[in-house]
């Protein structure tokens, strides 16, 4: 009896020591959850999730304050990636926050109509609009995330959201279909 207790305690102590050592020796400095979530968000900075930018939304998700289905630009792919990272259920995109655009959008300023008020420049979260007071403005198409935040402030409604022009380089080979996928009405 005594021997058994002694053996068990000794083993427990030994394994405890090994585990303790391993915890120190093999410690992984996983980069914080917020960064990992932020890396999955599309960085449109559009605020459609009701948070002022992608990082604040990432913080809210990390703190459990927001569900993972509030990002329309990311769409279902982002939701799946987030669910995978956080090990939660995959949700449908919450339609209250908007629809996922199939082709990314880019803002285009009608330069004839623009009065040079700089309001859109102040609204752009990624500094993608170039211009000065009383001078015509233009969008740097390559930097525009298609967030639409420049639309409301424009007093003359001269900004339009257009789908990004698709070239041959954007074309993707389609996944073939197996006999099984066909049956599921794919």
């Amino acid at each position, binding site marked *: 009896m005594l021997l058994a207790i002694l053996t068990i305690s000794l083993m427990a102590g030994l394994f405890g020591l090994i585990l303790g050592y391993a915890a120190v020796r093999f410690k992984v400095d996983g980069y914080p959850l917020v960064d990992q979530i932020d890396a999955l968000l*599309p960085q449109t*900075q559009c605020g459609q999730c009701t948070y002022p930018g992608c990082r604040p939304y990432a913080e809210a998700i990390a703190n459990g304050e927001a569900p993972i289905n509030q990002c329309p630009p990311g769409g279902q792919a982002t939701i799946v990636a987030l669910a995978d990272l956080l090990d939660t259920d995959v949700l449908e995109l919450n339609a209250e926050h908007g629809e996922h655009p199939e082709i990314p959008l880019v803002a285009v300023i009608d330069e004839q109509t623009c009065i040079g008020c700089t309001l859109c420049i102040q609204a752009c*979260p990624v500094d993608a609009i170039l211009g000065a007071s009383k001078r015509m403005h233009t969008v740097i198409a390559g930097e525009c995330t298609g967030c639409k935040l420049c639309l409301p402030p424009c007093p003359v409604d001269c900004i339009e959201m257009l789908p990004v022009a698709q070239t041959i380089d954007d074309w993707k080979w389609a*996944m073939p279909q197996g006999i099984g996928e066909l049956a599921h009405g794919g």
Partner: protein
Amino acid sequence: MAAERHSLHRFHGGLQLDGHKAESLARPLREASLPPRLYLPLRQHIGDPNLPLVEVGNRVRKGDIVAASASLICASVHAPSSGTVSAIEPQPVAHPSGQADLCIVIEVDGDDEAAPAEPVDTGKLEPAELIEKICRAGIVGLGGAAFPTSPKLSRARAHRVETLIINGVECEPYITCDDILMRNFADEVLRGVAYLQQILAPDTTQIGIEDNKPEAIAAMSRALAANPLAQTEIVPVPTIYPAGGEKQLIQILTGREIPHGRLAFDIGLLCHNVGTCVAIARAFERGEPLLSRIVTISGDNVAAPANFEVRLGTPIAHLIELAGGYLDGDKVHLVMGGPMMGFSLASDAVPIVKASNCILAMRDATIPRAVGPHEECIRCSKCTEVCPANLLPQQLYWHARARNFERTREYHLFDCIECGCCSAVCPSRIPLVQYYRAAKSEIRAAERAQYRSDRARARFEFREKRLAQKKQREEERRRQKREALRRKREGDAAAAPAEDPVQAALERVKARKQRATQDELS
């Protein structure tokens, strides 16, 4: 002779295929007539597309440069014949998507008037200058990949090239354009090789030719015997697909493998196609840019398969006509390139580009994968046996199909050369290569999206920081203002309670002005 002493190596897998070479070799090489219109796509190789240098209505002469790019990986486009630029607009191009892309359309006048040629005095120029000439001549690899030749040469020069390999293997069935080129222009091929030797100064040069082309080997050997080149040998290589792949040919000739993510010149080797050598020779000797190439027209649905010297931009329909037309016009399946790696074309309006080595007109029935879904994989691993990169094609397939792209990378998806051996042997007729191409394009699209979102994040964070700094500066200024005011008031109260209030107000204004100038200066 030298060839017999050469010890060859093997690569993993590969296939013995029916050559189907005799069909197009039965007729001699012919020059294709000029079509009424030439279509020159601006995007003919990887890297940025070229920009047009002409406008609609401009008259161009044969050899005039019509499009170029400032990018590092560049090859200009020249007018293959004289005429008028009638449009710069989207036209069907040779691309698996079947989409249209921007082309310069030249209405051919038939005079074929040439721009004055400037032959290159190769003896007087430095290698770097010769490379510049090759760039101006718009020369790309004519083996089918169409990678611009000049950046390849200048990057290789930065390394030391021990062995220059000239690729005359042409391992894909049906294609015979290199074969007929070597038979007809062996001297020019060797002169091109000599120029490459001048540029690269390799220790040795090996010209690999598949042993199913005895006439080409004989012609090249005769030419080499007549004008010997230092340390140059012609090496017949066994006929096994894909021996003509750059990596495989290097493995056969040298026994060496190119490490992951590196290029041939990283291990002191460089590969060029025989057609490219002829293009270089012509560019230097005649001062003629790349205006035409030899194209094989073959397949079981064309009346008289043959090889043609074709002006770039010639629509395929024009060539099919020259080759006697279709046998069964209702059931045509057009392929650009060989049957293993080529892609299907949506129409015969597509023009010949620098990369077009072969046009196959097949009957629909010959194309095994034209219709219907494939059967399921039974893990028989025939694909693994034939893979020249020694990959596990079926693991790649399972993960690609499950869209588990991270895993496909772990299984070396990007080492796949898309040779099609695995698809060809699959008993379930799974289009494996298409799975890999689909997976690759998804991964590349995701990488582009990631790049964009990283950039957007950086810009957003920078803007946040800038706004925060601005706010902080403003607050600091307000605080200083309040501080100054308070100190002033305290000082006033202590020193001169009975002072003239008007004087005090003036003083304040003066002080404020002073501060403003200071602020402006700072």
